[in-house]
């Protein structure tokens, strides 16, 4: 191909654009200068600062609690729901099916303000509980879509075979359906977890005093004044993401190798 070089340059530029802000943050997290313009010298000071920042650590713990709880609950409800909606017919099924897509398509801010309104109406105090509830609300649809993609027609044949051989619904679910769905359940859970960790918009409306999350904390830090603490924090979070991704990639490749043996 005559344009091969140009094409490679284009791909390279796209990746450069994607990674540019991240590289900048990592480099400047080790910079002695507070102003982020010139690289003056190497330091770990911002990392030390970070661990003395109580607010930030508390926000981080809150974020983890919310992400773990909402992921567990939304994965369970979403998986069960995907199975039920796939298997049974009932009166408002098509309506429920449409409602599920609403959190995926409407702007997040609309879901955020509508949840805030309903919490105010029912006098539920804003805080950790409303945050978890709201994160469950926007995660479930993604879990359902993810699980549904693994519910193929062959699965139905297997289920019927299991029933013909005398298995009851519960047994069929745990022995036949669930193992087949597992990849969808896992990717749905990972999606729910990352969405929850990163959520700004819905948390902004549904958090109360004393229930800061990490994204909200970072948001206020960026607005009040830029401190290299944020750079250090970003670098650590990036590192954590990389570790999780590589581990999951290694596990996956091992499974593939094991499967071909």
């Amino acid at each position: 191909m005559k344009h091969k070089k140009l094409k490679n340059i284009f791909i390279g530029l796209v990746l450069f654009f994607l990674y540019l802000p991240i590289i900048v943050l990592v480099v400047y997290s080790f910079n002695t200068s507070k102003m982020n313009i010139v690289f003056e010298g190497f330091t770990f000071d911002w990392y030390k600062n970070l661990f003395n920042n109580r607010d930030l650590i508390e926000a981080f713990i809150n974020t983890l609690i919310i992400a773990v709880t909402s992921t567990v609950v939304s994965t369970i409800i979403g998986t069960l729901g995907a199975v039920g909606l796939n298997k049974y017919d009932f009166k408002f099924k098509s309506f429920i099916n449409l409602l599920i897509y609403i959190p995926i398509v409407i702007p997040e801010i609309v879901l955020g303000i509508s949840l805030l309104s309903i919490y105010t109406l029912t006098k539920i105090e804003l805080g950790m509980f409303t945050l978890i509830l709201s994160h469950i609300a926007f995660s479930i649809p993604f879990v359902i879509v993810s699980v549904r993609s693994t519910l193929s027609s062959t699965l139905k044949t297997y289920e019927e075979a299991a029933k013909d051989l005398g298995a009851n619904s519960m047994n069929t679910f745990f022995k036949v359906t669930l193992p087949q769905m597992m990849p969808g359940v896992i990717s749905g859970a990972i999606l729910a977890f990352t969405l929850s960790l990163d959520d700004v918009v819905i948390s902004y409306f549904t958090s109360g005093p004393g229930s800061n999350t990490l994204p909200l904390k970072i948001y206020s830090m960026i607005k009040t004044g830029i401190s290299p603490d944020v750079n250090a924090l970003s670098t650590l979070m990036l590192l954590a993401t990389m570790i999780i991704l590589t581990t999951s990639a290694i596990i996956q490749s091992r499974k593939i190798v094991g499967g071909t043996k």
Partner: protein
Amino acid sequence: MKKGDRFFKFITLSPIVIYTSLLILLPLIYIFFLSFCKNDSYGGIIYDFTLSNYIAIFDITYLNIFVKSSLIAFIATFICICISYPFALILRERSENLQNLMTKLIMIPFLTNSLIRTYGWIVLLRKNGIVNSILITSGLIENPLSLMYNNLGIIIGMSYTLLPFMVLPVCSSVFKIDNTLIEAARDLGAKPWAIFKKIIIPETISGVFNGSLMVFIPAIGYFFISDILGGGKAMIIGNLIKNQFLTARNWPFGSAISIFLIIITFFLVWIYRKLGGKLDDLGGM
């Protein structure tokens, strides 16, 4: 239906029915109701029917924000298409391993906090930031360019943050094109442009529209990006709704704008389905 089966039906369906009715349907019905209510000057809600909130949307100040915000979202969507489409077409000719590696490489920045990535752009774009410093030291410009705290900053931030939502559906639709179709067309003497127009575009249109939906809709609502990169003056619809709920405390008007956005969203989704798109593909990341 056997007893055990009925129990299983109850267990699988009741959580999802309760969830959709309490956390999706009820809140939306409530803001629909609020959008027809009046507002007192202390931020309270008067339960009295009025259409004034919807009429107020057509006030010139708000119409300006609507037009500007849609324009910013449209440009961001267009930039994302201009990056994703060639990217997918180039990768289509490469090995499957490279395609998988590239999709992973695109996902990694997406998995780090979006605020943190937006913050990275401040370091790059501000007056004494990296881009301006490089341009000035290299002698290309004398005075720093205003790259942020304006609409340009918002457009850069939106395109950057939402790019993965375009790349993934576009790649999956482009990679799915049947090679034999293109080879057949080539054997029959079709020119590259004809192949592009008659095969590649029709085969990928729903993927592109899927990506456009997932970029355009958040781009009118992501108030934090316009707050950070647009400065105080620049407002998109997201900022307008946020202000009505938290600063001006005019919930009925904020609700009316939200209902208006929902209607626009439903209309866009309706077009997407007319183009042959599936709803399940929208959440598939």
